[in-house]
């Protein structure tokens, strides 16, 4: 099974150096009110062939993807046309997952700003309002705290809402409801009320979106007891996680990334979900464990190409489940490689990487040959200027250097 990471033409891979020609990036993003979707821009084409997870109860049903090696264009074309499944972009995969769940269970509904008639500012809910009606795909006024709370009240009384934050950062306004009600009501009610809500939205550092639209809320939410957090990174796991989150009885926060919506992949036609608590093995290896999630996965895979050419064999794991951590997959990897590098987009202080470092040290200290290295974003509000923004987040070159240091 080959996983192919391939940059396509002028719409260069999102993980390249700053001078990349992002011709597709002509759309202007103005905060909150209007947004032109990045139609047709293919940042990168990733084809992975996870098998269909038919054994929904099994934890290890998803097969491993081996060897991140760049191949030529010919082999890609040849392989894609003969394989089953269908190709789509990540936002379409999310939409497909959402639509399938809405068909499957009439209690599933969507609430958020511009999710209905507008189709979602990132088109995840495109056409759904036409299909399911304005009450099931509810356009809310701009009142995050209240409509998130409304989603929670609806969840308590029998519905299964999916609340969209137009940008994850806006959910800071809903922190009251997410922390106090979403996370805690099942407990303070003594287990009487379940809150099967999914809160989702795009976050992370985009292309010069400015500080407030570039936030990483996973680090703020991670301490809230009673919630689960997952981050999707490929169309395959986006659809799978969306479906699993909707079906889960727990409140789940699904983190998407602004820059990953146009990833293309071939995914199975059959119904499948991705286990919410499991990590995903992206590339097995021997020398070092690289733990990452969301957009940084692509920076890591870009660095992996360089590392492989230099003779290293990194094991790359997309942790996917930000809360709780899949300590089994992570632990097995640590026990094999004895070296850990964490690459994340959160800030250095108090991020997912910080928690992960603590968890690994606590559980697997004996297996480590070197201190854990955690590459995070700078503790800086994301600057607007492209050059500054670029150095705020972790770049592939830094990852390569870090691995070289770690493996000395």
């Amino acid at each position: 099974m080959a996983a192919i990471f391939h940059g396509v033409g002028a719409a260069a891979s999102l993980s390249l150096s700053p001078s990349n020609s992002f011709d597709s990036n002509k759309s202007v993003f103005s905060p909150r009110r209007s947004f032109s979707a990045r139609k047709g821009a293919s940042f990168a084409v990733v084809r992975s062939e996870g098998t269909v997870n038919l054994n929904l109860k099994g934890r290890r049903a998803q097969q491993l993807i081996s060897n991140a090696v760049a191949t030529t264009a010919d082999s890609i074309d040849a392989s894609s046309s003969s394989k089953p499944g269908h190709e789509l972009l990540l936002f379409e995969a999310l939409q497909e997952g959402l639509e399938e769940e809405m068909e499957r269970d009439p209690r599933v509904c969507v609430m958020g700003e511009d999710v209905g008639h507008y189709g979602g500012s990132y088109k995840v809910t495109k056409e759904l309002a036409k299909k399911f009606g304005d009450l099931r795909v509810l356009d809310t006024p701009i009142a995050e705290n209240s409509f998130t709370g409304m989603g929670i009240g609806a969840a308590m009384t029998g519905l299964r809402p999916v609340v969209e934050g137009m940008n994850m950062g806006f959910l800071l306004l809903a922190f009251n409801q997410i922390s106090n009600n979403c996370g805690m009501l099942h407990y303070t009610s003594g287990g009487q009320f379940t809150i099967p809500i999914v809160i989702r939205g795009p976050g992370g550092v985009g292309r010069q979106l400015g500080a407030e639209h570039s936030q990483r809320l996973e680090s703020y939410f991670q301490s809230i007891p009673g919630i689960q957090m997952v981050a999707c990174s490929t169309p395959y796991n986006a659809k799978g996680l969306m479906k699993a989150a909707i079906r889960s009885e727990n409140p789940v926060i699904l983190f998407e990334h602004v820059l990953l919506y146009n990833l293309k992949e071939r995914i199975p036609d059959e119904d499948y979900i991705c286990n919410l608590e499991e990590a995903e093995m992206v590339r097995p290896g021997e020398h070092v464990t690289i733990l990452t999630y969301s957009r940084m996965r692509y920076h890591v895979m870009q660095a992996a190409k360089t590392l492989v050419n230099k003779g290293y064999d990194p094991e790359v794991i997309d942790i996917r489940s930000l809360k709780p951590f899949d300590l089994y997959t992570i632990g097995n990897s640590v026990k094999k490689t004895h070296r850990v590098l964490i690459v994340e987009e959160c800030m250095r202080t108090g991020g997912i990487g910080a928690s992960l470092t603590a968890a690994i040290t606590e559980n697997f200290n004996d297996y480590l040959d070197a201190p854990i290295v955690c590459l995070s974003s700078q503790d800086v509000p994301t600057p607007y200027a492209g050059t500054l923004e670029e150095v705020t987040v972790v770049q592939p070159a830094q990852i390569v250097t870090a691995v070289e240091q770690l493996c000395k």
Partner: protein
Amino acid sequence: MAFSAPTANFTPLNTPFLRSHDNTLVSSLSPSPFFGSTAKLRLSSSPNFNLHRRSGSVVAVSEAVKEKKFKSTRNLLITKEEGLELYEDMVLGRAFEDMCAQMYYRGKMFGFVHLYNGQEAVSTGFIKLLKLQDSVVSTYRDHVHALSKGVPARAVMSELFGKTTGCCRGQGGSMHMFSREHNLLGGFAFIGEGIPVATGAAFTSKYKREVLKEADCDHVTLAFFGDGTCNNGQFFECLNMAALWKLPIVFVVENNLWAIGMSHLRSTSDPQIYKKGPAFGMPGVHVDGMDVLKVREVAKDAIARARRGEGPTLVECETYRFRGHSLADPDELRDPDEKARYAMRDPIAALKKYIIENNLASEAELKAIDKKIDEVVEDAVEFADESPVPPRSQLLENVFADPKGFGIGPDGRYRCEDPKFTQGTAHV
């Protein structure tokens, strides 16, 4: 700008009267009956409001408390059964709260305990009109809402004592009363955060009717909150959404004039809260919250309106808490004269007087109810005393509905499969 000043002697309970501050609004209304007949309230033109999107009336009404001679027509607002039911519910609320105070000072319950003495008319007046499937959302001052909704006194008292037989297994406490069976959706510690939850419950009711096609679903939600909350963003945001989607909800403001030590008049630019309803497109009604029959009349209309699918109503109940904000509040700021004036309007005494004067029941029957309630409350305390405290094993049980949410441990098994999980000692 001030409220109609509370009169020294309370008004007879059987003569609700309609008067408004704003003549342009209700000049076309005849003096009676109050709010009961919506036909009279349909104002086709109102210069003050932009009604282009709605045909219904949007009114702000203040019901002044007026002295009127009691006409001896048998024009009573309640039957004997209803009267006794209301009386019993209010006495239960009062006796229970008094017992809470005793128990608190004896060290049986801790933390923040907020008592409802004096406000019983609001809880009884509204909640006794509801069906079991209707929902109630409250604040931290929620003991009496729970009792009115039907949660057994035993369950509430045990919860306050932190015992495992409490309605929330001892995990919620005074400020977090929940009951799935009785559709009591909490119990919230932060003011205002229950209002969106109530809006969500009302949304579910509408969704069930319109999307899931449960044609007979007409469940109504009541959201109770105080005057302080009416300056909070969540209040306004929910008024907007409820009116926008015509959700079956009634917003009940228990305006007791004080938010801990902050007088409503010192914190609010326009203290007449009922006027904020029409600003969002729903009727706003002001009612004497010390008078259970007046509250009940207003509640009937507001709840019926919601059930018919006509949308929300904002009801401001002028009421008063006889005790401090909580049992830890020294209550030094409130004027003793003000307290005395409201004490004379004690809702229980008023109802008792009404029942006896109108020969609905005898003094003996009411005393029998008093005694019965005393026994109920004593029994609740006994039950709570004898109940076990939660064992350690309960610690991790209700954090997640699906305990797989604790994740996969280093050994490959889910944490919840660890035998120590059920003992409450697992490492999660």
